[in-house]
């Protein structure tokens, strides 16, 4: 079953187009990473899926029904971002108790243990927490709710690296023990790459790529060496990135449709064959120009 189905989804804020003709589906019980540069429309897409924002055009179905103002979607979806709206009168443990009443799958033991692990003070008020602690708390609530669809929108704001690492592990652990559909939006693709099963890449409100994570790593390959040689080998292929290295050598990242033999030939011709990481690939695919920031400095 597809938990989320999107066809030609568009969203406009006044005159700004945030999403344009977006079509994709998210399968049940997968962890999908939603990546892209700032302003790509990630948050907008997630908020539409959660039922907070209204679409402008196209179709979107979550659990087979339109998500806006939909109780079934709300009851089975948990949206975690860095500013969850929580009442100021309840302290952390009271908030947990309140959340518990809403979700039949709530695992209170898990919540308490995570609380303990991350050294949160149950008597503290949410608004008095540091940014990192707030994010940690929000994450705990999101995990403990065990909703069929759990959305994390940049949930690690303010968390230090150690806490982030623990968070990813916790997420993975709980996911493995209690499978559900998770969408994780982050600009730190490198960090979360290991726990993702699929990656959905957005650029300026449109889908740029939607692939299983391991395929992403093989998607492109980089060739570096003498300019003419590189040009020869990359002829006819889509070039994602082109960087100048010294007087006559360039680096080019292209779609990896080479055979093994072709790559060997490239090596023999004096080129370096470099893998393109998923993170780099996403950067290349979403940048404005093929030269990246170098174009600012190149006048030709």
């Amino acid at each position, binding site marked *: 079953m597809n938990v989320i189905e999107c066809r030609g989804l568009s969203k406009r804020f006044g005159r700004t187009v945030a999403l344009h003709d977006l079509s994709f589906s998210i399968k*049940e*019980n997968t962890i999908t990473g939603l990546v892209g540069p700032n302003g790509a429309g990630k948050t907008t897409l997630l*908020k539409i899926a959660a*039922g*907070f*924002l*209204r679409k402008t055009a196209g179709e979107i179905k979550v*659990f087979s029904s339109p998500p806006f*103002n*939909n*109780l*079934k979607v*709300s*009851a*089975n979806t948990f*949206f975690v*971002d860095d500013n*969850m*709206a*929580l*009442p*100021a*009168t*309840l302290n952390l443990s*009271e908030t947990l108790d*309140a*959340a518990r*009443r*809403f*979700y*039949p*799958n709530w695992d209170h033991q898990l919540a308490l243990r995570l609380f303990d692990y991350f050294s949160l003070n149950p008597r503290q008020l949410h608004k008095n927490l540091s940014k990192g602690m707030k994010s940690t708390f929000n994450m705990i609530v999101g995990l403990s709710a*065990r909703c*069929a669809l759990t959305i994390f929108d940049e949930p690690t704001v303010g968390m230090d690296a150690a806490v982030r690492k623990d968070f990813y592990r916790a997420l993975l652990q709980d996911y493995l023990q*209690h*499978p*559900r559909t998770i969408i994780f939006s982050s600009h730190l693709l490198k960090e979360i790459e290991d726990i993702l099963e699929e990656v959905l890449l957005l650029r300026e409100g449109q889908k740029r790529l939607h692939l299983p994570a391991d395929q992403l790593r093989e998607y492109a390959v980089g060739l570096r060496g003498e300019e003419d040689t590189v040009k020869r080998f990359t002829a006819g292929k889509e070039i994602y990135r082109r960087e100048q290295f010294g007087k006559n050598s360039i680096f080019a990242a292209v779609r990896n449709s080479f055979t093994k033999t072709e790559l060997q030939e490239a090596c023999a011709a004096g080129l370096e064959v470099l893998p393109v990481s998923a993170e780099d690939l996403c950067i290349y695919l979403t940048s404005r120009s093929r030269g990246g920031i170098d174009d600012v400095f190149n006048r030709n």
Partner: protein
Amino acid sequence: MMSLTETSLWDAVKKQYVFKLQSYANFFVSLVIVQLVALLFSAGGMAGTSGIGWNNILVEVKLYSGTGIFIFTVLCTLANSVILTLPFYRNIDFSFVGSRLSGNMANIGFLVTAGLFGGITATLGSILLRNIHYYTGGGGEILKSFFMITPGELVTGMAVAVLYLILFSTAGYFAGVVVQLHRSLLVLLPALIVGLIFYEAANEQIRIFSRLIEFFVFERSPFHFSLKIILIASLLWIGAILLSNRKEVR
């Protein structure tokens, strides 16, 4: 495979209602504070003093009334109901499980509960006021007229107070929703109302607000009074629901 949770509207409303009773306990406490302040003022004699003297006799009567407590409660309730429509509070509805409809229904449930609380405590506050005067200074100076309130009158007073508070709650809630429909309305609506009030004060012929007030205040039949309030409150509430049903949140 994870089986999906089915939630009925009623279920969601109940859960949200209970959640609000806890989360918004500060609203109830604000009513208490406001009533205590009103009590303080009323104990000093808000309704004024009247006196008369002739020959060698001077009679002075200092007037007291519990109505001040009710008025303060109304104002606080009105403010609270508008505040409830603000984005900060609206968004809380969507942190957990809810739709706009369930959130609105839970809000009205909350406001009615707060109205019950406010109406009952305001009326009892009148009793407290009388006790305070009786036990500080002795009863000898207190005129019997209207000092005693029979249990029947007390219940009537409570019921009327609660109904008025429900009316003002829904009016405030509706106004809050309307004002947030468009940024310009934030200035336009209050300006319009204030302008109308001044206009009416200056011109005798226009009697919109006077008639509105009389519509309720001069209604002597309990049945008609309750009916009026329930009908109008329901209309306002339905209006609020319809107007906010397509609003984007968070």
